[in-house]
Every structure is written in C-alpha cells, then in structure tokens.
C-alpha cells in the first residue's frame, strides 16, 4: 500500500478509510471513476466547493506531542472545529462562528471538543500553524436501488497536490464499498494509507549541542547563545501580540540563560563582550519583568481563590480588576520597549557579535577549552552556593536567601550549558538535589515578594475605596503566603544539607573534570 500525505480532516469519518492518489498514467476524474465502477454502482458528485482548512496547535505543539490534531474548516455551509484524537476514526466536531486565532481554549464554545482540549493546551493559545484551500466535490456511491453505500470526496488537483478520492462507507455497507474499491484499484487507482501532512513550523525546543571537552569553549558558548537567540526571536511576535503568557515566559527564560552564560563564560570571552552586553541584556530583562510578574498573579488567581477561608472567590474581583489595569499599563511599556530602536539594536547587535565570535579565528578569546571552562564555571558556581547556604541560619535576613536562589540558578545554567560533556548520571543526581533546594528557595522568595506586592495592591485598593470584603480577602492571601514562606524556611536546612553532602561534592568534581 502506498503512503502519501493527506489532510487528515478530509478522510477521517465514521468507518473504514480509503484514499486514492491520482494514478500516474490516468487522471482521477468523475468520468474515470464512473467508467471503472461498471454497471453495479453509480456515482454522483455535486459542484465543487472551496474548503479552507487551518491546522491549529499551541506554539510548543502540545496537541501534536499528545498525538492529537485540530483543524478549523470553513466552507460556504459554515465553520467547524475538527479534533482528531490519536488513533481515532471518528473525529470530534464542533460548529463555530467567527473564530479568530490565536485563541485561548476558554474562548471556545462549551462542548466535547473544548473539554478534550482544555487539559492538553492549558494556558497556551491555539494558533494557526498552516492553512490551505481545497476544491472539493462531495459525492455518493450508490447501488442499483440508488441507496447510498459510501460518501465520496473528490479533492481536485491543485498546483502542488494531486487529485484525491476519499471513500467513506456507510454503516452496514463495508462489503459493497470494498467491492467498488476493488474495481477502482483494478482501474489503476490503488489505495494508499493517508498520513498527516507534516506541519511546517520549526521546532521551538532547545537542541542539545554536540561538542568535545577539548573544543574551544567559545564554540559552545556561541552555539548555546544562538539557540537562545532563536528562541527569543521565535517568541517575540507572540509577546508583541499578547497571544498567551507563555511567549513572554519562554522569551525571558532564553534571555536569562543568555545572561547567565555571559557570566559563566566571561573567562573564555574577549573582555569587551561581557562589559558591553551585560547592561543591555539586563535592560531587556528589566523591561520584561513587570508584565511577567503580573501574569504570575493573574494565572495564580484561581489557586489563590482556593486559599480563601472566610472570604469567597468573588471577593478577589477587585484585585483581579486592579491586576488587569496594571498589566495593561505594563504591557504598553513593554511593547514600546520591544518596538524601540534600542531593542532592535540590542537584538541585531547581539546576533552580529555571535557571528563574529563564531568566525575563525576566535578573536581575542582566551583559548580556553570547553573542559577547562566547565571546570572553572561549575566549580565556582558550586562553591558560591555552598558558601552562601552555609552562612544561612535562623536569624539570616530574607535577602540572603534571595541571593542564594540566584546563585543556585547560575549553577543550574552552568550544569545545563556543560551538559554535552558531562556525565549524565552524575548531572541528573546533582540537578535533582539542586532542584529540591531551588524549589524551597523559590517558594520562600515568591511568598516574600508576593506578600509585599499584595500589600502594595491592597494599599492602592484602600485608597480607591475598595469594598471591605475585598481588602479582607487580600489579608487572607497574605496570611496564606506568610504560612507558606514559614514552611519553606523550615524546609531549607534539610534541602541544603542534602545538596551539600559529600556525595554531591564528588559528583560535582566528576562534572568539572570529566571521567
């Protein structure tokens, strides 16, 4: 059986699926089909209609990864969403009107399609990844009683695609349809197995770089930066259009990694590179922070509502409105910044630097190898975490824990950066312990920062004469966060002891110098 790409929504039906690509030697036309089917069957086709098909997924392809495909079909009769679960012969369909993409799943009409999609896509927006028009003639295969045996779709030949026929038997008529299919096969239209059209978007994940310990360190740095720059560029349109919150999140993660590598790689870089770019990249980080912070609050609102005991979710309405207002203002600043000449210069200048550093010879670089830089960077980052952690006791102010969290992030990025040359098992164990510690520190700091922010919001709400209930609800949130922070603080000693135990030190040594 031949295989060929075919839009899945055009062939998935209630029964057996069959498709016929255009035979090489004879065109697939209504006349050719009628001639092949002899006197036992009759076929009828209506006039062609244009169907617009759009393939939808999230930017990070959550549906595709789970084996689903989602399509928005429009023809003169109306519009519908078609969701094809993995391995299903029967798609879920839902009529839609005036659907605009990108859209969050909450914007879709209630029903089985939305219920199926919601846990898969969560907070990511559905967007169009590919779209095309098909000229389709709908028809029927009938017997001598003029009973319909199968529904037919003749997808007419286009510039870049051959003509197709899909045959979808009615229930109870599989045998008759198979007989007709055999006649078509004998006439030179062999069945093929439809496979989904490959989507054209690039992979958005970060690829692992392959490199040796003895390779110049600058090569690894440039490769990692190039990946992060690509991620930033890929996410930028989604940030500007405010498609969903995760575009900004992914943009910031790539930026943070870029900045960390700038610090970690300082010894291997020409001096002016770090000095020149650290301030600009910090500016970019600061530009994106306010919106992200507000996103975290907005995304967390349903969870926060669950913290309330005396107050109810409705009491957070004033806070939600306040958040939206602040976010709108922060986004205006962000978009202005991202459309500014400074931003354009930062991005293009940074790309130029990467191109320069990648070109032989590596300029005024130090000549350090990847192995040497790994030894220095991982060792230094590890020592900074251990020293910082050892200084913390019950009386240590919160700032010291915040600072330790930053050091942990640096170590994490160092472990990621040098992953291509490091022992996988050792790295996995170190990262597991480090994640544990980061989680405790993260909860501690997030609760601390959120408490302060909620105080500020509550103050503004009070000045704006917000209802008492709304202020009391804010008090409950602060109280919950305070308890959370205390819990995290209580878990610190155990997490740090686990991270800094001798076995961890041994593994770090292995990661620094290799086997």
């Amino acid at each position: 059986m031949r295989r060929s790409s075919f839009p899945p929504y055009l062939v998935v039906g209630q029964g057996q699926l069959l498709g016929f690509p255009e035979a090489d030697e004879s065109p697939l036309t209504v006349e050719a089909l009628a001639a092949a089917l002899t006197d036992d069957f009759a076929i009828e086709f209506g006039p062609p209609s244009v169907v617009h098909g759009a393939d939808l997924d999230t930017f990070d392809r959550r549906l595709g990864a789970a084996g689903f495909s989602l399509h928005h079909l429009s023809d003169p009769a109306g519009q519908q969403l078609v969701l094809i679960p993995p391995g299903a012969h029967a798609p879920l369909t839902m009529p839609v009107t005036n659907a605009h993409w990108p859209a969050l799943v909450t914007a879709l009409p209630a029903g089985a399609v939305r219920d199926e999609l919601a846990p898969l896509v969560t907070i990511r927006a559905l967007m169009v990844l590919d779209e095309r028009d098909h000229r389709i003639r709908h028809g029927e295969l009938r017997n001598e009683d003029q009973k319909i045996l199968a529904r037919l779709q003749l997808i007419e030949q286009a510039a870049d695609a051959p003509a197709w026929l899909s045959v979808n038997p009615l229930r109870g008529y599989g045998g008759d349809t198979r007989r007709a299919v055999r006649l078509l096969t004998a006439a030179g239209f062999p069945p093929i197995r439809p496979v989904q059209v490959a989507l054209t978007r690039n992979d958005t994940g970060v690829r692992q770089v392959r490199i040796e310990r003895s390779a110049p360190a600058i090569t690894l740095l440039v490769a990692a930066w190039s990946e992060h720059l690509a991620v930033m560029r890929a996410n930028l349109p989604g940030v500007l259009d405010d498609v969903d919150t995760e575009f900004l999140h992914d943009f910031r993660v790539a930026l943070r990694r870029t900045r960390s590598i700038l610090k970690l790689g300082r010894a291997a870089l020409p001096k002016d590179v770090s000095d020149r770019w650290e301030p600009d990249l910090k500016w970019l980080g600061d530009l994106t922070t306010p919106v992200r912070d507000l996103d975290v609050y907005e995304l967390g609102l349903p969870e926060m509502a669950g913290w309330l005991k005396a107050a109810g979710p409705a009491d957070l309405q004033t806070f939600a409105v306040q958040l939206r207002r602040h976010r709108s203002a922060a986004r205006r600043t962000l978009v202005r910044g991202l459309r500014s000449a400074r931003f354009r210069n930062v991005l293009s200048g940074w790309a130029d630097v990467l191109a320069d550093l990648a070109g032989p010879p590596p300029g005024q670089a130090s000549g350090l190898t990847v192995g040497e830089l790994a030894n220095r960077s991982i060792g230094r980052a590890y020592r900074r975490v251990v020293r910082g952690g050892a200084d913390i006791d019950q009386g240590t102010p919160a700032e010291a824990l915040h600072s330790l969290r930053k050091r942990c992030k640096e170590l994490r990025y160092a472990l990621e950066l040098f992953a291509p040359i490091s022992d996988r098992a050792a790295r996995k164990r170190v990262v597991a312990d480090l994640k544990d510690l980061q989680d405790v520190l993260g909860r501690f700091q997030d609760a601390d920062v959120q408490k302060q922010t909620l105080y500020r919001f509550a103050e503004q709400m009070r000045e704006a004469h917000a209802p008492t209930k709304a202020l009391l609800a804010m008090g409950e949130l602060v109280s919950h966060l305070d308890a959370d922070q205390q819990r995290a603080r209580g878990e610190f000693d155990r997490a740090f002891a686990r991270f800094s135990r001798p076995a961890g030190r041994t593994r770090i040594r292995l990661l620094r110098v290799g086997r």
Partner: protein
Amino acid sequence: MKVLAMYNIKGGVGKTTTAVNLAYLAAREGQRTLLWDLDPQAAATFLFRVRPRVKGGSRALLTRGRPLAAALKETDFEGLDLLPADFSYRNMDLELDDTKKRTRKLGQLISTLSGDYDMVFLDCPPSISLVSENVMRASDLLVVPLIPATLSLRTLDQLTGFVADAGGNQPQVKAFFSMADRRKRLHRQVIATLSADHPHVARTIVPALSIIEQMAERRAPVPAFAPRSRAAICYEQLWAEIRPT
C-alpha cells in the same frame, strides 16, 4: 434513550409512514436515531432503499445471539440508522416464544444499543401478539395512528386496555388522526367527537395527502423530498407535540 413504537392493531393506518417521517425529523434535529422495522412486509426498509435481507433472519437476532449492531444499516440521512426487516420476521412470534423472558426479549436487545442512540422508533406489524407484548414492555411511548372511522374509539379503548393489562412497563399512549379527509362528513364527526379533550389523542391531524403516498415512489421521508409540503408541516407539528423530553 427513548423508545417510541408506532402501533395499531389494524393495518393500513399509516404506521410506517409515521415511523419513517418522525424518525427522520428526530435525526434531523440531531438525535442519534434508530428505526427498527419489525414488520415482515419491510415497508420502512423499502422506503429507505435498504434491501430486506437480515443475515440469519430474525432467529439469529432473537435466539442465536447475533448482535443487533451487526445488522444495522446507515440510511442516506445523517444520524438515522435502520434495522431492516425481512420475510423471516413473520416467525418472530414463534421465535420469541422459544426465548427466556419471552415478553422482554426485544427490550433487552434494544437496551444493548442504549449508548449509541437517543431515540429508537419501532415500526410494528398490525396485530396483538407476543411481538406486541414485547413492544409494550420495551417502549416509553406508543404512537397510534387512527383513521377517523366509527370503530376508531373502540380500537383506541382496546389498545389502552391492552396496555393497562400488560403489566410491567406501561408506556404512554398517544393517538393521532391519520389519513383524515375533511371532505368526508364521517371523518369530521369522528374527529370532533374523539378529539375533544381526549387525553390520549394528539391535536395534530395528518390528512390523507397524495404527497405521503409518493413516499413509496420517492423512497424517502416527506420532509426530505418535500420539506415545505403540508404533509411535512403536519409531521413536524406531530413530532413537536409528542416528542419525549
């Protein structure tokens, strides 16, 4: 799943045309619908252009465990499937008599499809028999077409009595006048007499119309080939009046 049986002791009163048209209307409004043609004459089967052929006959379905799902035929109309009849159905009484729980067998078989359909229509043969008893027990609603004749009231009374005596599940009974001809004085009189506040008689009257007779020629439900005809409107009104909620 709701089960509606088109039933009358008498033949030629419009059971099949009612079953075909109402099943079509149910499917058209989005209900997953099945019509089981129980009449060995297989008129409903014919009207949907399906061949009157049941593999293994009714015996295979009733006594040999052949699943109903294996005998289903999709009609030309979306959401509407048919269980066809063939001449072997003339022995259905005898075959039911050979089964355990002989008055509940049809209901048991229908319940195997409860996840697949919202509405099941039964087009019944004209008789009082074991098949009829099965239909009573399986149905939520008996739809009784009545020709406006002097004996109609007696027929309806006999039927409601039969339902009351059947024990077990007692379906609701809703009769309606079918093949009514207002030019006939007798029809007008019977309709006037019986319609007045009779709890079992629907307000909708389906007249004798040539377009309904054309179903046999067109082999399709009236609302499908003549959607604006008076007959189609009458069936829509009837469906609106009796459809289970």
